[in-house]
């Protein structure tokens, strides 16, 4: 049994119009992982996902799903993949239960098998009561859940989620996170692209950041959380901060008596308080703004 759910080697993609979308991408996703695949808009994330799902042709390189090459064995690899695309791509005119039966049929499930699985998924995702509705009659959040259910109808081993919670309210997002964790615990490997870095931080164990078609970071989430060189604090003071040069590092005034301070991670809280005191300002409160992933993301993608 291969250790990797996904192996990408020297993957390149140049579109017909000459746009180079991917440059020598190398990536491994371990079986059972929840893997974050991050990057700004247009970085190449959706191109990679398109290639894995064979909707985008490869220029050069190799992609394997559980050890099977996607070009040589497309029918085997597709059977192992479920994909939730970023854009809605639902048939707008048929009841959603019919969509599920059709997709099940494409994967070789009988109507009976597809209906049983659909009921299970729709109940888990809270859309069973909408089974006779067409996608046009569903809210944005329901459409997202439908696309997740559709991707899981054939029990894939690898689930690819491309912005699965985009446009979804906070409460539903939390519910969906729990659902992703549950299916991951059941053995489904998940690859997640998202613009909500908190989502990646909360769910994922490993991550890759892609920028301008190149992988610029590839490491466990834990390493990133402990290795960031910068740290940001919110500092509240008893008097007005008039001197922005208290620190050599970046200081953003939020209002008269509070500021956002980004310092080297070796700088202790005591040192910060001492420096404020030296400027005759007392620190009332100091909070850590825990956004190391965001800091890293900005650092890597704004180069």
């Amino acid at each position: 049994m291969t250790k990797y759910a996904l192996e990408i080697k020297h993957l390149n993609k140049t579109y017909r119009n000459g746009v180079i979308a991917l440059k020598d991408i190398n990536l491994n996703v371990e079986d059972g992982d929840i893997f974050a695949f991050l990057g700004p808009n247009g970085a190449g994330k959706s191109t990679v996902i398109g290639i894995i799902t064979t909707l985008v042709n490869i220029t050069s390189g190799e992609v394997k799903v559980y050890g099977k090459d996607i070009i040589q064995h497309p029918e085997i690899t597709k059977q192992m993949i479920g994909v939730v695309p970023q854009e809605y791509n639902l048939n707008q005119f048929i009841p959603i239960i019919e969509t599920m039966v059709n997709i099940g049929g494409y994967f070789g499930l009988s109507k009976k098998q597809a209906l049983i699985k659909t009921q299970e998924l729709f109940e888990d995702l809270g859309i069973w009561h909408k089974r006779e509705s067409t996608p046009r009659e569903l809210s944005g959040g329901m459409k997202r859940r439908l696309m997740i259910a559709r991707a899981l109808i054939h029990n894939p081993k690898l689930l690819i989620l491309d912005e699965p919670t985009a446009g979804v309210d906070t409460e539903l997002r939390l519910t969906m996170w729990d659902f992703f964790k549950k299916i991951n615990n059941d053995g489904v490997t998940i690859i997640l692209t998202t613009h909500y870095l908190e989502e990646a931080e909360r769910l994922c164990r490993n991550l890759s950041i892609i920028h301008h078609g190149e992988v610029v970071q590839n490491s466990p989430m834990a390493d990133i959380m402990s290795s960031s060189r910068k740290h940001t604090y919110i500092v509240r003071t008893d008097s007005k901060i008039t001197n922005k040069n208290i620190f050599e590092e970046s200081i953003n005034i939020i209002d008269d008596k509070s500021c956002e301070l980004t310092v080297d991670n070796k700088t202790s809280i005591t040192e910060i308080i001492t420096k404020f005191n030296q400027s005759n300002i007392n620190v009332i409160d100091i909070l850590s703004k825990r956004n190391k992933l965001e800091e890293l993301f900005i650092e890597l993608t704004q180069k």
Partner: protein
Amino acid sequence: MKDLYLIQITTIFKKEFARWSRIWIQTILPSVITMFLYITIFGNFIGERIGEINGLAYIHFIIPGLIIMPIISNSYMNVVGSFYSGRFQKSIEELFVSPLSSHVILIGYVMGGVSRAFVVGFVVYIVSLSFTSIPVHNVFLAIFLTLLVSFLFSILGFINAVYAKSFDDINIIPTFVLTPLTYLGGTFYSIYNLPEAWQTVSMFNPIAYMVSAYRYAFIGVEDLNTYGAILLMFILIFMLYSLAIYLLNKGIGVKN
């Protein structure tokens, strides 16, 4: 594996069948009404003045052609409309991320077009019986030809859908190619009643062979050799099927 392919093809076919049958007022009825009017006006009103062609009442002469016309247009429009609509909505991606082979996708869609063509053809035939009794000369040949013609034009519709970039593009071929070829294919006249130059031109119109073969299946009279027509259809089906599979394998119109 055989079971897998069977489930997959059946699924696409059922989806396609449900699609056109759910909106039968848009898909079946217009062709039936149009052919009803053709039979009423050309067969009844004008036909009585025209008299006989090749020893047959004019209404009998034109009915096989009037049945094959909606078979051609419905098989074509069903597949081009459905596949392009899927591309437009991007729901076609469902097929391409699933473990479906190109043959399964194509056959599934073609079966959808064929089923619609059979239903329309049958209903038009039933309607024609209300005007005149026209016994079918060779039922099996009529069914076989309906299958070949609808299969052929379904594939053609599929190829059109792959290349179409807008809804306008799916009407170009039917309007500017199929309709003229059908009207000039001897539906309303015998090719041998044309001036010699036009007879020669008609020999290059594949639909003329189909109309002739269909007329033979219904009334036992042919302008052109029926076996030649069947051979021609097999050759065209083979060529167009191969092209459609090539397009699917390359992902043209779907993949980037």
